[in-house]
C-alpha cells in the first residue's frame, strides 16, 4: 500500500454508483439519519436510466433502459418521486406484436383475437402466482440455515403461496421451473400471443424461451408495479432520465451528498475492515461503511481485489454468469416511421415463439442472429402535436446479441446493425430512408459504458441458479460481504432489476445490523 491512508473527507456511509438502486439505498440511509455520500463516476446520475449523449445534434438519445416496469412501492412512497418531478407520459402502455399476419394489441389481461379468453385466463393465473411471490422481493433472501431468518415474514409469504388453494398451488409448483415456450404452446394458439409471452420471459436474459426456468422470469416481470398499477409499462416524461433526475432530487432532499464525475479507483481496507476509498483523481474519502451498487464482480474483484478475499470466493465470483444477450439500438429519424399501427405502444417485433428461440441460437456460439427480435419504443409519438415538434427517435432493445463475438467486436456490431435494419425495413417499409444516424450498443459496449459485467443489465444473470439465496453468490446473498463494513446492493443482488428494491433491502439490512 502506498503509504498510510489519509483522507480528505469523512462521512458515515459512501454509496458507490448512482443508479436507481444506489439512489434508493442512499436515500433510505440518509432518511434514517446517516451522513451519506453518493459517488457517481459519470457526469449524470441514473446508471442505466441516465441520459446519454445525443445520437446526432438535435436528436437526444434515449437511456439504456427505455421503459419502467417496476418501482418498488416502498421506494416510490418514501422518496415521494412525483413531488420531485416524476411524471408519466404513459403509465399503462399497451403492447402491440408486429406480425406479417396482422398486428395484435394486448393490455394486461386483455388481448385481441380468438385467444382472448385463453390469454385472460393465463394472465390471471400467472398474476396470482406473481402476487404470491412478490413479498419475497421486499426482504433479504431467506437463509437456508436455521438462524438469521425473519421467520414471521417467511411464514407469511409461504402461507401466501399455500393460500392459492391446493389445485393452484400444485400448478404453481409445476410451472415454477418450466420454460416459457411450453406454456405458450400449451395455453395459447395465436402465434403472436406466444411471441409476446416468450419475448417477455427472455427479455434481458441469456436464454431462449425453450430453456427451462424461463417462466419464472416472466412471473418476476408480472410482479412489478408502477404508481400502484400492477404489471404495467410506464414511460416517464423525458424518458428514463426523467426518472433518474427525480430520484436524484429526492435523494438529495433526504440529505444525500451526490458527487458526480467521481470514479472510485479502490476501496481501502485495513485489518479486514473498510477504511474508506480512493477516487481515480487521487481523492481519498474515509468512511466506516461502503455500499457498492456497481455490481458484485467489479466491486470485489477490482475495487477490493482478490488479496482481501478467500480464494474460493474469488473463483466463484469469476465463474458467476454474467452474459449480456441484449443490444440497444438508437435511431435518429427524420420522420415518424410507419409500422402500420398506433405508435403509442410498446412494439414487439417477433412473429412467434420460434422467432425468439431462433434469434438466441447463434448467440450461444458468439455469433450474430440473422433475424433479431426487438422491443421498440417511439418516444416522439407521445409528444406529437407539441410545438416545437420533438425529434423522432426510435429506441429498441434487440435480442439476442453475443457478448463475446468470435468475429471481433466491430464486425459483429456491423453485422448486428445490418440485421436489425433489415428486420425493421420489413416491419416498417421506408424506415431506412428516414435514418439520420444509427447507434448500436452491443453487450460489450454496454459493459464498457455502464460497467455492467458482460453487458448483462442485471450485473449478473438473473437466472434461477443465481436468484434468491444464490444471488449473487450464497455467501453474499444478504448484502453483507466478508469485508467488515462493505456491503453490496444493485441489480446484482436480490431481487435484481432497477426497481430500487435491492437498494432498499440493502439499506434495511445495514440498519438492522446496526452497521
Amino acid at each position, binding site marked *: 500500500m502506498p503509504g498510510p491512508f489519509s483522507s480528505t473527507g469523512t462521512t458515515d456511509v459512501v454509496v458507490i454508483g448512482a443508479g436507481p438502486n444506489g439512489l434508493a439505498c442512499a436515500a433510505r440511509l440518509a432518511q434514517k439519519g446517516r451522513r451519506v455520500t453518493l459517488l457517481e463516476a459519470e457526469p449524470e446520475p441514473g446508471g442505466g436510466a441516465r441520459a446519454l449523449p445525443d445520437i446526432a445534434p438535435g436528436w437526444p438519445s434515449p437511456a439504456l433502459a427505455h421503459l419502467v416496469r417496476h418501482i418498488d412501492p416502498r421506494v416510490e412512497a418514501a422518496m415521494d418521486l412525483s413531488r420531485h418531478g416524476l411524471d408519466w407520459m404513459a403509465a399503462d402502455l399497451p403492447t402491440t406484436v408486429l406480425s406479417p399476419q396482422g398486428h395484435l394489441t394486448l393490455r394486461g389481461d386483455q388481448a385481441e383475437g380468438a385467444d382472448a379468453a385463453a390469454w385472460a385466463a393465463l394472465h390471471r393465473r400467472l398474476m396470482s402466482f406473481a402476487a404470491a411471490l412478490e413479498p419475497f422481493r421486499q426482504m433479504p433472501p431467506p*437463509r*437456508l*440455515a436455521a438462524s438469521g431468518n425473519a421467520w414471521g415474514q417467511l411464514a407469511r409469504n409461504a402461507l401466501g403461496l*399455500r393460500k392459492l388453494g*391446493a*389445485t393452484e*398451488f*400444485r*400448478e404453481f*409448483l*409445476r*410451472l*415454477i*421451473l*418450466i*420454460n416459457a415456450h*411450453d406454456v405458450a404452446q*400449451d395455453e395459447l394458439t395465436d402465434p403472436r400471443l406466444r411471441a409476446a409471452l416468450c419475448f417477455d420471459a427472455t427479455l434481458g436474459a441469456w*436464454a431462449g424461451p*425453450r*430453456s*427451462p*426456468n424461463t417462466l419464472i422470469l416472466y412471473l418476476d416481470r408480472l410482479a412489478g408495479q408502477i404508481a400502484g398499477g400492477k404489471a404495467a409499462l410506464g414511460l416517464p416524461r423525458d424518458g428514463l432520465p426523467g426518472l433518474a433526475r427525480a430520484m436524484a432530487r429526492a435523494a438529495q432532499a433526504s440529505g444525500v451528498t451526490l458527487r458526480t464525475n467521481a470514479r472510485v479507483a479502490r476501496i481501502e481496507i485495513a485489518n479486514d475492515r473498510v477504511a474508506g476509498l480512493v477516487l481515480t483523481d487521487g481523492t481519498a474519502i474515509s468512511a466506516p461503511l461502503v455500499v457498492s451498487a456497481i455490481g458484485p464482480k467489479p466491486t470485489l474483484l477490482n475495487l477490493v481485489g482478490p488479496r482481501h478475499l478467500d480464494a474460493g470466493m474469488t473463483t466463484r465470483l469469476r*465463474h458467476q*454468469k454474467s452474459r449480456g444477450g441484449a443490444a440497444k439500438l438508437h435511431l435518429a429519424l427524420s420522420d415518424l416511421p410507419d409500422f402500420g399501427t398506433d405508435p403509442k405502444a410498446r412494439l414487439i417485433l417477433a412473429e412467434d415463439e420460434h422467432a425468439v*428461440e*431462433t434469434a438466441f*441460437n447463434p448467440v*450461444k*456460439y458468439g455469433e450474430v442472429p440473422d433475424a433479431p427480435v426487438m422491443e421498440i419504443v417511439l418516444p416522439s409519438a407521445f409528444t406529437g402535436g407539441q410545438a416545437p415538434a420533438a425529434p423522432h427517435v426510435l429506441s429498441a432493445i434487440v435480442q439476442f446479441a453475443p457478448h463475446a463475438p468470435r468475429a471481433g467486436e466491430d464486425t459483429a456490431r456491423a453485422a448486428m446493425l445490418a440485421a436489425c435494419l433489415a428486420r425493421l425495413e420489413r416491419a416498417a417499409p421506408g424506415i431506412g430512408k428516414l435514418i439520420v444516424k444509427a447507434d448500436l450498443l452491443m453487450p460489450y459496449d454496454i459493459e464498457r459504458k455502464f460497467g455492467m459485467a458482460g453487458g448483462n443489465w442485471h450485473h449478473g444473470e438473473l*437466472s*434461477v*441458479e443465481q436468484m434468491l*439465496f*444464490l444471488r449473487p453468490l*450464497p*455467501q453474499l446473498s444478504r448484502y453483507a460481504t466478508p469485508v467488515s463494513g462493505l456491503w453490496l446492493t444493485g441489480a446484482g443482488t436480490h431481487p435484481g432489476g432497477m426497481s430500487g428494491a435491492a437498494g432498499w433491502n440493502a439499506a434495511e439490512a445495514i440498519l438492522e445490523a446496526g452497521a
Partner: protein
Amino acid sequence: MIWDAVILGAGHNGLVTACYLARAGMKVCVVEKNDWIGGAAVSRELTPGFTYSNCSYVSSLFRPEIMRDLELPRHGLQILPYEGGAVLKEDGGFLAMYRDHDANRREFARHSPRDAEAYDIYSRDVQRHCRFIRPLLLRTPADPASFRPRDIGELIWIGKHMSGLSEQQIAEMVRFWTMSISDYLDHYFENPVIKAYLAVSAIIGTALGPMSPGSAYVLLHHYMGDVDGNVGAWGFARGGMGAITRALAASFTATGGEIRTGSPVGKVLVKNGRAVGVALANGDEIRAKRVISNMDVKRTMLRHVEEAELPQDYVSSVRRFKTRGSSGKLNIALDALPRFPALPEGAPHLRGDLHFTDSIERMERAYDDWKSGHFSRDPFQDVMIPTTIDPTMTPPGKHFMSCFVQYAPPKIEGRDWTDADRDAFGRTCLDQIERYSPGFKDLVLHVEVRTPRELEAEVGLTDGNIFQGELTFDQLLFNRPVPGYANYRTPVRDLWICGSSTHPGGGVMGAPGRNAAAEILRDAKRPARDMSDAWAVL
C-alpha cells in the same frame, strides 16, 4: 376367474410390479402386445445368429435392491461392467476414459493438468448429489399440496434428510438441480473435450441441449446407478438387455405368475368408477381386481381409457405431459471389429463407449437441429460394441454394434417420418462413423435404423420418448406424471400406473415398478414380502 391384478405391458417396470405382487401372494397376469416380452429392455435376433439390444443398451441404474429381492442373478441375470471408452477428436487425437478414477485423472492430465485436479473435486461433488438423491428413488413423492399425515411425514423426512447438509451444500445442490451441464462443467473444467465427454450423460434421451438449464439434473439421473456397488459404473447385461426382463419373467413365473404375449390391449374396463379388468383388442376380457399399466400415462389414459371416465382437468394435464422423443438408434451387425486409426492398436477403448462429439458446441448445434424439426446433421452418437465383452451375442469373430443417436425429433418439420427420412438419418450416422473408421461401412452386414417413429410403433413409447416423458422439473418428483397423482394412482379407482412416466422416471431402473407395487400392496392392506426398504413407502 378374477385375477388380483392384470398388468398391461411386459416391460421391465411392469414385470417388477408383477414380481412383487406375485410374491405377496396375488394372482397376477401380464398382457403384452408384442410376441416377445421386454418393452424397451429386449434382446432380439433380427438377423440370424446376431442378438441385438435394440432399444436400451447398457445397464447401471437398475436398483440393486430389486435385483436382490427378486433373485434375478439366480434367474440368469449377469451384469458385465465395461471398461470406459474414448472420445475421438476431429483433429485425430482422442480422450480415453477408464473405470478407474486415477486412470482417468492421468488421462485428463494429458489434456489439461488443471482439469485433472478439478476432476477430483468434481467427482466428489457429483457423488454427494448422487448420495443425496438415491434414497428418494425408492420413495413415493410427497404431495406438497396435501395435508394428509403421510405426505406431511414424508416432507418432514426430506427435511431431516437435508438437515445433514450444510447451508453451502444445499445451495450447491439447488444450483446443480437448476443449471445447464455446460455452465456446471465450466465451473470445474477448461478443456473442451473433457467437458464434451462429461456432458454426455446430461443429454442422453432428453429433449434438452447441454446449454439448457436443468440438464445437469439429467446427468445425475444417469450417474446415480451402480454396478456391483461401484456408483456411476455401467455394464452390459450378458446376452443383451433382454436378459434383465427374461430374468424378471423367470422370477415372476416361478412365483405363479402368467404372461400372455401377442395380446394387445383394447380398453380398460371401468365400472362405477373402478377398473375391473381389461378388454383385449381381440375382444377377450380379463377380469381383475386392479389394472396396472406399464404404458406411459398418455398412452394409457388417452388411448385405453374412455375419456368419460376421467375428470376433464386430468385429461388436459395428461395431454400436456411432454413426451417429445429426441433419440434414435442404429443396431448394426458387423463382420469384424472395426478399426479406429486414432486409437492405439489393441487399446481397451473399444470395450466401452465411443463418442465423436468433441465439444459442447457441437452437441448444442445438434440440439438446434432437433428444435427446428430435423434430425441432427452432425449427431452425437454413443457407440458401443458389447460383443467385445459378451461374445454370446454373435457368431465367433462377428460383432454387434449399438449406436445411440441424439437428436432425432418425433416429427420431421411437422410431418411424420417417412422411410426415406429414416434412411437419410441412418446414412448420416454411418457416414459419421466412417469418417473415424475408414472401411467401416464394408464391415456392415445388417443395419436396423430406429427413429422415434419406430420406437413408438414397436415399443409403444409415445412420440418415441425413451423415458416415457421428459425429465424436466415440471415433470419430476411430485409433478410426475401429473401434479396430485404422483403416487402411482389415477382418478379411476384400482387403475394404477407403474411405468417410467411415474417417479423417478426413465432408464432401466425398475424403481417406478417397485414403488407402484409398494403402493398397491399398501392399498390392498397386504404386507409386502421380499421387499427391501419396504418401510420407505409403506
